[in-house]
Structures are given as structure tokens and as C-alpha cells.
């Protein structure tokens, strides 16, 4: 192996400078995730839940404080692989707020008489003697918290990474724990495992596209650094096959992650099968992280060829908005309905990507926050409406819920109004900001299509609200469980943020605007 290890004139090895302060939130979350694995190993079973809860919530809160303290920083660090800038910090903050709310749902233990939302032991066959014994002993799958923290860390990295390699690794750190979390529901385990498998296979498929796209861009630019790719585009004017194909494949990989039509097939099945708390987590946080990365790649690296990729995004955006809204109309399951509504929202968010201007970035960031809080709130409500077999998600059993529990039904109605984009809710402001950016970015016709799609969406959300509030409740309908303070707090937070962002949006819009420049 002489030539392999030939002693040559190797240049002095210089460690790259890493500004640990700038990436401290990410390091904290990932480090505490490792510690929570150690908690699993060494803390007695009886105390694990409490220790993990304290650890998770304190980690997320401290990380949020660190992010807030970093506000205003703009730097590329760690040998050019992480960009700590306005959008990264804003989205890290959004992710941490949403993760805190989702963690409250995951921690809930009061609505299911058997325990929390997860199987007592995921390795025991559902319905077996073992499983009954584990359930009787009240064992809990506290590994959920390790996976949760790892996933949050991956998401934060995904919105911060500024070369395609770190983005790929972050994508996997975000996704692998989610595949596992999707498959360990306590009730309807088979459905949950199938959701996990579907999510996994399609997730791996999409990361294959992302990777091949990265390879083509590397071939074009000689580097995977987003800034380096942008420089290469400036240097080589004119069309290049590698650049176009690489852009398309990376976009396809990201379209899968944000569930844009026609890459959305997995979303309804996965959202329906996963434990609802995890559905809330992935519907909100994954969308934030994936759009964060998509905006960064498209703005920073590929902004120079926006005229080439815009047509594709136009088509996908229009398809996504219309297909999402129209199929949502036909759904009879509340979870599937919210899944299709989240597909439609991906379409509206794509307008902000097409806009490729600062307003688009700011609008998308606000939209993601508004959409995320309402989504977690909405799924939180779904965990409360139960019958003897678990959650009652069929729309017919939700009929007349407003007569029985006006508060819960009212909260759900507010979330739906926000999804529909009715004034005085956060969703309206978000949509308005994105549409405005679209017009400014020269995508006027796309915005016209979006307004039409919104009209369809208003119709379908309105239909659900009518069923919810004004129809006659079924005699053997489900009951609304009174949750512990965890879920109650999550729903209340979602509700108040939805209303506050809708009534006094200006401070948040200003913040998003100030944060809306990517550093290269």
C-alpha cells in the first residue's frame, strides 16, 4: 500500500475555526439528546419519565434562550458549513417553539387510560401476553424523548447548514428518529407500523434524489458549498445540463419532504397512522425545516438560475394548492383532512420560494410560524376526542361536537379559520404576506391561482366548521376527554399564538423582515 500511504510533503494540518457560541443551540440540543440516551441506560425505570421530561423541556427552553441571545448575528462558521444568520436563527426559534408545544402533546398521559400515546414496549407484539404484562406494569417507552431531541437537533441543523453534505446529513438526523417515532403508537399499532414503513421507504427514496442532485451540482461547481455553487453559476453563464438536472433532482427530494403534489402520496397515510402527537410534530416542524433548507438552497445557491427553475415551481405550486384543497374536501377522516390541508399549505408556501425576494423569505417565515402553531393545536384537539377504541377521527363522529364541548370545538374552529386564512387569525396575515411577496416577485398569475385555491379551501374548512358546530350530535358519539395540563397548555398556546399573530402581527412581521437576509 505504498502509494496509498506514501509519505509526502503533507501541508500543516490546521484546525478550522469553529465559533462554538454561534452554534451553541444546536450543540446543546444534540448533546442533551446523547445525555438522554445515557438516562435510558442508567436511571431506574420508575424515574425515567420525570428525568426525561425535565431534561427535554429545560433543553428546549435553554436552546430557545440561546437562539434569542444570538439574534442579529450573521456569520458563516465551521469551515463554511454552517451559516448562522437571520433566517437560520428565526427558523431555529420557530422550530424550538413548535417543538416545545409538540413535546407537551407527546408528554400527555391523561387522555388514554392505559398510559401515554406510545406502546408500553415497542418490541412486544401487539396483543401478546408480553404486551399486556408491560402495559399492566405501566412501562413507558421513554426512548421517545431521545429520538425527539435528536430529531429537533437535526431540524435545527437543516435550516442552518450551508453546504449540501451537511444538509444531507441533517436531513437524515431529522428523519430517522421520525421514522421510528411514527411506528410505535399504543393503539392501532399495525397501522402505525405501516405508516412508519411507508414514511421510511419514501423518505429514503427522496433522500436518494436529493443526493444525486447534490452529486450533479458538485460536478457542475466542483464544490458542495452553497456559496461556491452560486459563484460557479456566475462564472459560467449559460445553460448547463448538470446544473439544471441537479437543481431539479434536489427540488424533487425537497418536494417529497414538504409533501408537494405529486410527491405527497405518503402524507395522508403517515399522518393518519402515526401517534397523533408525533403527527403534530412532523406536520409542523418538518415543514418548517424542509422549507428552511429549500429557501436557503434556492435563494443562496440557485438564485442565479431562478429563471430556469421557476416554471417547475409554478407548476408544482399550482398543482399542490388545488389538489390539496380539492382532495381535502372529500376526506371523511379528520387526520387525513388535516394532512391534505397541510399539502395545500405547502403549495402556498412554494409561492414564497418562487418569489425569490426578501419579502418572500420574511413571508414564508411568518407563514410557517402561523401554520405550525395552528397545526399543533389542531392535532392536539384530535387527541382529545376519543371513544372506547382510542381516538375517534371519523368526521361523522365529530358532528355536533360544539353542542357537547363548546370550548374544544371552538378552539378547533379557530385553528381551521386560521388554516383557511380568515382575517384576524395568523393564517390570514401569513397568506397575505406570501401573496404580496409573490406579486412583488413577478408571480402575479400564480397569486391569482392561489387566491382561487384559497376560496376552495375556505369552502371546505367552512363545511367542517358547520358539521362541527351546527349539526345534531350522534347518540353514541365520542366523548371529549379532559386532558392533563400538558395538552391543555399546548392547545391554549396554539390558540393564543394564532389569535395574537392575527391581531397584532406587526412585531413578528418586523422581526421576520429584519431576519430575512441569507448570509453567504
Amino acid at each position, binding site marked *: 500500500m505504498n502509494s496509498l*500511504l506514501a509519505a509526502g510533503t503533507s501541508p500543516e494540518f490546521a484546525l478550522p475555526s469553529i465559533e462554538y457560541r454561534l452554534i451553541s443551540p444546536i450543540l446543546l440540543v444534540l448533546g442533551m439528546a446523547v445525555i438522554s440516551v445515557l438516562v435510558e441506560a442508567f436511571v431506574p425505570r420508575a424515574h425515567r419519565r420525570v428525568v426525561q421530561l425535565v431534561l427535554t423541556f429545560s433543553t428546549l427552553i435553554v436552546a430557545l434562550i440561546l437562539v434569542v441571545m444570538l439574534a442579529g448575528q450573521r456569520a458563516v462558521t465551521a*469551515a463554511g458549513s454552517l451559516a448562522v444568520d437571520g433566517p437560520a436563527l428565526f427558523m431555529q426559534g420557530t422550530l424550538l417553539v413548535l417543538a416545545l408545544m409538540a413535546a407537551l402533546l407527546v408528554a400527555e398521559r391523561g387522555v388514554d387510560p392505559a398510559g401515554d400515546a406510545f406502546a408500553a414496549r415497542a418490541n412486544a407484539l401487539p396483543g401478546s401476553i408480553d404486551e399486556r404484562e*408491560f402495559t399492566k406494569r405501566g412501562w413507558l417507552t421513554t*426512548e421517545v424523548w431521545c429520538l425527539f431531541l435528536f430529531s429537533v437537533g437535526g431540524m435545527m441543523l437543516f435550516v442552518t447548514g450551508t453546504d449540501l453534505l451537511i444538509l444531507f446529513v441533517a436531513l437524515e438526523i431529522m428523519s430517522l428518529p421520525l421514522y421510528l417515532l411514527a411506528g410505535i403508537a399504543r393503539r392501532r399499532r399495525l397501522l402505525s407500523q405501516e405508516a412508519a414503513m411507508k414514511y421510511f421507504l419514501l423518505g429514503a427514496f427522496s433522500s436518494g434524489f436529493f443526493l444525486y442532485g447534490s452529486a450533479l451540482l458538485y460536478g457542475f461547481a466542483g464544490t458542495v458549498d452553497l456559496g461556491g455553487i452560486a459563484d460557479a453559476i456566475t462564472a459560467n453563464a449559460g445553460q448547463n445540463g448538470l446544473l439544471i438536472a441537479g437543481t431539479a433532482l434536489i427540488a424533487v427530494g425537497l418536494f417529497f419532504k414538504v409533501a408537494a403534489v405529486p410527491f405527497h402520496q405518503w402524507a395522508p397515510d403517515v399522518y393518519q397512522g402515526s401517534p397523533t402527537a408525533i403527527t403534530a410534530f412532523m406536520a409542523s416542524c418538518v415543514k418548517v425545516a424542509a422549507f428552511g433548507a429549500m429557501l436557503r438552497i434556492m435563494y443562496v445557491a440557485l438564485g442565479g438560475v431562478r429563471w430556469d427553475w421557476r416554471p417547475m415551481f409554478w407548476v408544482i405550486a399550482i398543482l399542490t394548492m388545488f389538489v390539496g384543497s380539492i382532495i381535502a374536501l372529500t376526506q371523511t377522516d379528520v387526520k387525513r383532512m388535516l394532512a391534505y390541508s397541510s399539502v395545500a399549505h405547502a403549495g402556498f408556501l412554494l409561492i414564497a420560494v418562487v418569489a425569490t425576494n426578501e419579502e418572500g423569505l420574511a413571508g414564508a417565515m411568518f407563514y410557517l410560524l402561523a401554520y405550525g402553531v395552528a397545526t399543533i393545536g389542531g392535532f392536539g384537539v384530535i387527541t382529545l376526542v376519543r371513544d372506547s377504541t382510542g381516538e375517534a377521527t371519523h368526521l361523522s363522529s365529530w358532528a355536533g361536537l360544539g353542542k357537547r364541548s363548546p370550548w374544544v370545538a371552538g378552539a378547533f374552529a379557530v385553528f381551521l379559520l386560521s388554516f383557511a386564512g380568515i382575517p384576524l387569525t395568523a393564517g390570514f396575515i401569513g397568506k397575505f404576506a406570501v401573496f404580496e411577496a409573490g406579486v412583488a416577485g413577478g408571480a402575479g398569475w400564480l397569486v391569482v391561482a392561489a387566491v382561487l385555491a384559497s376560496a376552495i379551501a375556505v369552502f371546505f374548512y367552512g363545511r367542517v366548521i358547520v358539521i362541527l358546530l351546527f349539526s345534531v350530535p350522534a347518540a353514541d358519539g365520542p366523548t371529549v376527554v379532559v386532558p392533563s395540563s400538558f395538552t391543555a397548555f399546548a392547545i391554549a398556546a396554539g390558540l393564543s399564538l394564532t389569535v395574537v399573530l392575527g391581531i397584532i402581527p406587526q412585531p413578528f412581521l418586523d422581526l421576520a423582515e429584519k431576519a430575512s437576509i441569507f448570509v453567504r
Partner: protein
Amino acid sequence: MTASSVLAATSNSGAEIVFWVCATLAVIGAVGMILSKKPVHSALFVALTMINLAILYVALSAPFLGMVQIIVYTGAVMMLFVFVMMIVGVDASDSLIETIKGQRWAAIVLVLGFAAMLIGAIVNGLQGVPDPSLVAANAEYGGNLQGIAKIIFTDYVIAFEVTSALLIVAALGAMLLTHRERHTPKATQEERSKARFLRYAATSELPGNLPPAGTYARHNAIDTPALAPDGSTVPASVPGPLRERGNVRPVDVAAEVEVEEISEGKTVVAPINDEDGEQR
């Protein structure tokens, strides 16, 4: 001499032969993966592709990656696949019913178009680009392996560190889903033995082994119940399924009397002719 230096030393036609042979085999592997009915065959075809890719890596002056490809992919990943198939049962072949009619043909047409576009893009993108080599880059670091190591610990140091998170998640996930836990401690041999004798005291269930079929009877066939020393039959000595089906051979009275006589010393054992006339 490494393989790469061999390749570099040989003429251009040598490298061309290596490419065409390995490329053909790799494509055959990929096609075989799709066409095989059984997952195990698919796995072996994939392994074929991966080994050939390893050789191509060496030809592309990436000897280190060639080795890693063989060790990690063919050695670990594909063997893990085969292991799992063996554990879950290899007969899990596809049902050939198509869920959506014509999906197969639509997919083939779609992928053909996709491949054509991809190849077109690559050929277009590389048009007129000179064919450089890695000699300069390797020399800069003092070798291929040194170069990769340097890049891992400088440019991609963050990616390298966070990859550990990925590995922890993988280990944790495998434990979570497949490691079976006990809810009660496993009984020791002593405890099981004690339980057996306590049961004997309570229900007079025999603590020892059951007599095998045919003990003290005239036949030792599996369907012949054993005879206890007192001449009675022991039904439990015949396997359960035979008892369920009523296939227990009756012990004829004459034999029982004979046993009794033998035990009392009245008769000497004489050769007996079996039904088929064979002397026993």
C-alpha cells in the same frame, strides 16, 4: 503496488476493458435486482453490483473508497439484508398482482424518459470539459488517504461530528424495535426443578421424564403406549397428535397377561412371530 497504480501503469485499453466488464456486470446486477422474484436473489445481485462499483472506484483513483465499499456495503450492509431475510423467512416473494393497472408500464416509460434526460444532462454538462486527473490533488495532501482524512477533519468536521448522532439513533432504534425485554426475571434451573416437585406434591404429576413410547410393551413403535410396571398403559407416552387422531395401538390382553406371567416367572420368553412372519 496497489490496484490503482496497476491500472495507471497499464495502457488505456486496459482501463477500458476494466470499465466495460465492470459496468456490464453492475448493470446486470441492477437489472437482476429488479427482475428477481425472491428477495435473496435480489440481494445477491445487488452485492454483485456493489463489488463491481468497488472496482470502478479503484479505477477512478479512489482506492480507499473501493475498500470501504467492499467492507461496508458488501460486507456489512448486504449481509444485514440477507440476515433479516433469513430471520423473517425468505418465501416472502411479491404477489404479482398489480395494484394499479398498467402501473408497471407507466413506470417503465417514465423512468426511460427520466434516464434519457439524466444522461442528456450529463453529456451536455461535460461537453468540452478537459479530462483532468486527481494526481495533483493527491500530491497536495501527500496521498489519497491523507487527502480524504484532511478534508474530513477540516472542511467537513461538523458533518463528521453530527454523523455520530445518526449512528446513535440507528443503534437506539434497532434496540427499541427489535430487542425483546423480559418483564420477569428468567427462572433458574433450580427454581424450575423446585416448581416441578411442588407440582408433583400437589397434583402427583410426574416430575421426571415421561416414559418413551413402547417401554415394556411388545412394540416400541411410536403409537404403542408404554406399559407401567403394574401392566397398565401410560397414555401420555404416545405423542399428543396421535392421541388426538385416535391412532393409538391397543395393547392386547394376551400381551398383558404374558407380561404378568413373565414378571411372575411362569413363562420363559419364546420367540414370537410377528404379523408379517418376521422373527423378533
